């Protein structure tokens, strides 16, 4: 009887005995992510499940990511198959209004410039000794687009998924802190004061809005077939929104599907943050490179805005170049706030929204182009 009691008591202590310092650190990191999501409001929809997933997976002997583990099932079937990020893309498409972009299509070029940080960071990562596909995964944080970063890293560098996702979502929420110093450093006060006037709201026909997602899907997917799942799902969601005939599907994509998938995706990302996998010097490097990628996106966007300013005889305020990243509509709001600091009568919001909508398409196109280039070079399979 005594030995049975002792054995039973030992069973209660097994978890404590097997708790290593790495797991303790990861439990604290999970708690930190929960704190940032709950108390600071940084992307709570993602950081709360990610933080909790990180806690669950670091409980000793719970084996959440083991062969039969509860999180392993969702990870294998939702993340490794890329289904989760693609379902989220349908929701994003259903929620996005491309009207500002359709009104002012030339601004879409700012959405291209706002992705250059991806490619510059790729070079930097290679210089730091990253493997080719690891460098691609860390560079894509510069898309400033969580689902794109998750899609690419889960496909080509799943061991980096946790770091890449946490970096992508954390920095997206920090855009109001990251962008303004760069915008100020690269522009003169005179440039920041340029008045672009109230954007003229141009009516766009319903047919154009319906045809737009179909044309984008066909055109961009033919040019960059590897990115067809990314482009196609965003545009499917947008077609459901604009067609006006599948309101139930649109509502489901915006709400139920996005909510359920966000919860499961967040938990799965957290589940990749096991101590042995996450507590490496490379993780810190991934986080630094992600920060550099988003900073470079902003810098190149603003510089491109300066070029457009010069080419148009000073009619474009270079600040709107910063909205060429994909953080929608946060980045456009940052531009509006910065513009008004230097000229209270300046309303840059609608112009910045056009650039920001361009950035949303730009991030997906940039990833699609990159995947197709990798395929063409034989780095990834066909």
């Amino acid at each position, binding site marked *: 009887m005594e030995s049975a009691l002792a054995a039973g008591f030992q069973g209660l202590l097994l978890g404590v005995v097997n708790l290593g310092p790495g797991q303790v650190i990861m439990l604290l990191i999970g708690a930190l992510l929960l704190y940032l999501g709950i108390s600071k409001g940084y992307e709570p929809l993602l950081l709360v499940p990610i933080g909790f997933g990180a806690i669950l997976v670091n409980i000793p002997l719970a084996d959440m990511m083991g062969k039969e583990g509860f999180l392993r099932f969702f990870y294998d079937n939702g993340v490794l198959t890329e289904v989760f990020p693609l379902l989220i893309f349908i929701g994003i498409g259903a929620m996005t209004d491309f009207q500002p*972009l*359709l009104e002012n*299509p*030339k601004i*879409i*070029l700012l*959405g*291209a*410039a706002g*992705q*250059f940080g*991806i*490619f*510059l960071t*790729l*070079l930097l990562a*290679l210089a730091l000794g990253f493997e*080719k596909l690891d*460098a*691609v995964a860390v560079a894509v944080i510069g898309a400033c687009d969580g689902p794109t970063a998750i899609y690419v890293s889960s496909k080509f560098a799943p061991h980096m998924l946790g770091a890449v996702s946490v970096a992508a979502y954390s920095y997206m929420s920090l855009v109001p802190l990251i962008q303004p110093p760069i915008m100020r450093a690269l522009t003169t006060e005179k440039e920041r004061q340029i008045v672009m006037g109230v954007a003229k709201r*141009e*009516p*766009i*026909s319903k*047919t*154009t809005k319906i*045809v*737009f997602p179909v*044309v*984008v899907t066909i*055109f*961009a997917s033919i*040019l*960059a077939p590897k990115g067809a799942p990314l482009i196609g799902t965003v545009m499917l969601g947008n077609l459901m929104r604009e067609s006006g005939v599948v309101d139930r599907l649109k509502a489901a994509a915006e709400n139920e599907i996005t909510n359920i998938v966000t919860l499961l995706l967040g938990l799965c990302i957290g589940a990749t943050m096991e101590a042995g996998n996450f507590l490496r010097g490379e993780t810190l490097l991934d986080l630094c490179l992600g920060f550099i990628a988003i900073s470079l996106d902003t810098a190149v966007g603003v510089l491109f805005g300066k070029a457009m300013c010069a080419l148009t005889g000073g009619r474009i305020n270079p600040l709107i170049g910063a909205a060429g990243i994909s953080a929608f509509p946060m980045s456009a709001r940052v531009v509006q706030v910065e513009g008004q600091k230097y000229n209270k009568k300046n309303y840059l919001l609608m112009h910045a929204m056009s650039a920001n909508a*361009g950035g949303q*398409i*730009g991030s997906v*196109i*940039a990833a699609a*182009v*990159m995947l*197709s*280039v*990798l395929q063409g*070079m034989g*780095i990834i399979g066909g």
Partner: protein
Amino acid sequence: MDTWTFGWTVALIGMGGTMLVLWVLSLLILLMKKVFPAPRPQADPKKG
């Protein structure tokens, strides 16, 4: 393929390709707006 050939190829074609695709997309949007123009708002008859 060595690291730098890989890096510069992806960077240059990636940046150029992204810019090119989005530029053509902007032309397609202009074309769509011409082919499917928005109906003009009808003038209010009471206002003469």
